[in-house]
């Protein structure tokens, strides 16, 4: 019993220690961001490997999610004779929810895990320690550019996901199932609000990008410097990102759309 309590206490302590380390780490990253203004090349390189290289999975997934939305939405709406509203259903689902959330989950799996593994391996092979001894702060040189690039790339990826998804819904709804093209677009135009829907979606994806990238770089930097430790850090990145994104999505949705 005492043994069990002690183990619970130790687990609790180590959890809060990690939480504290994570927040101090975030402060150090934020302090390193202004220095990047002088060296935009570092950020651009990371934008390529984090953002551009994630494009394929984002575009393909967005297309299929949009097509499924078109199909399911049509089947439901046609019973009520409201197939004209298919554009609204597809666009609102994507812009408000599926765009930011699914893009963030994919981002965690594709870019977040890669970030954690890369940084963890740099730590395991003493590259970070070597930089410190060369008087180059690895947080400024390695972590901050990756963090900033991730935080910029994620909202853009979510926007691309939504745009491609809308096109997928259009392809199925208008192209295959015969919904009126004019109605599809004009209904969407009339019912999707720039501030209430699009801007809130952008805020969501920005928050997700911030949190997902923070988790990834912290897990990598805090990894136990062995192959086992790096593998655990990578797994934890994906799991924690998914949990954080879904949890935050509920909170943000409640704040944004709660009193409608």
């Amino acid at each position, binding site marked *: 019993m005492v043994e069990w309590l002690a183990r619970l206490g130790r687990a609790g302590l180590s959890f809060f220690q990690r939480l504290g380390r994570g927040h101090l780490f975030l402060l150090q990253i934020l302090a390193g961001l202004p220095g990047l203004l002088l060296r935009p090349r570092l950020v651009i390189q990371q934008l390529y490997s984090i953002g551009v290289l994630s494009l394929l999975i984002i575009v393909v997934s967005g297309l299929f999610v949009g097509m499924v939305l078109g199909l399911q939405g049509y089947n439901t709406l046609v019973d009520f004779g409201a197939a004209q509203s298919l554009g609204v259903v597809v666009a609102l689902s994507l812009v408000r929810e599926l765009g930011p959330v699914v893009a963030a989950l994919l981002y965690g799996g594709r870019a977040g895990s890669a970030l954690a593994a890369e940084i963890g391996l740099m730590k395991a092979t003493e590259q970070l*320690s070597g930089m*410190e*001894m060369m*008087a180059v702060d690895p947080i400024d040189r390695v972590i901050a550019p990756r963090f900033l690039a991730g935080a910029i790339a994620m909202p853009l990826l979510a926007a691309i996901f939504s745009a491609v998804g809308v096109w997928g819904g259009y392809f199925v709804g208008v192209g295959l199932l015969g919904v009126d093209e004019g109605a599809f677009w004009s209904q969407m135009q009339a019912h999707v609000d720039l501030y209430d829907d699009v801007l809130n979606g952008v805020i969501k994806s920005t928050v997700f990008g911030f949190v997902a990238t923070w988790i990834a770089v912290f897990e990598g930097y805090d990894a136990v410097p062995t192959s086992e430790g790096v593998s655990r850090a990578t797994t934890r990145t994906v799991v924690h990102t998914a949990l954080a994104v879904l949890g935050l999505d509920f909170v943000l949705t409640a704040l944004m759309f709660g009193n409608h």
Partner: protein
Amino acid sequence: MVSQGGESLLVQIRGLSFARGSRVIFDGVDIDIPRGKVTAIMGPSGTGKTTLLKLIGGQLRPQRGTITVDGQDVNKLRHRELYALRKRMGMLFQSGALLTDLNVYDNVAFPLREHTRLPESMIRDLVLMKLQAVGLRGARDMMPSELSGGMARRVALARAIALDPMMIMYDEPFTGLDPISKGAVVQLIHRLNAALGLTSIVVSHDVQETASISDYIYVLSEGKVVGHGKPEALRDTDSEWVRQFMQGLPDGPVPFHYPAADYVTDLLAGNG
């Protein structure tokens, strides 16, 4: 800082104690590193020799004691001052710690590009000079993954001297090298120290190689300095422990057997 012998000291360690969790790694260690000399820190694996280098470089903090480098107390420095001091220290990691996404040339150029605003043409000259010094000017376009262990360590050495530091710390520079590479590294450490007017700290357990190039040797064991002196003096030491270490005898004060229950009792216990 001046030692008792009247030499000028670059690094002075006093009463250093360091523990990882409940494991004591150093317990009241005093070490003097004179300027311009090669000082070796020796001891069996796991005595915290690498930890000592990290303490000198300010990557770890001791629980007690002071470490003074060039007149500055490493643990009282602020972030910026510590980084300024590190620019004047080079460190050669056992693994080389080369940046795997950069080729040999860019690895050596890395500290120059980070810390200076030299034009690219001058960086090129400097990089080629450093690579020439370690004999790898021809390997400048190779990636770290294509290098052998000995080559990687020489590239790392070229990178460590890129900013013309006042001292270099070598972490196990001879471990895992073939005899030819080992000879090359031994000679490089010796030559660079003389030619560049460096101060070198060599952490190693390779007795022959280290003794051949060092001016002074400290032997560490179980958190304490168990012997120190010039290499010749240590060879004919009175301390049985140091003799066992320097001559590589399998049994002595450090027993061959890890502490265990009585052998016969242990074997018979399985039959019960």
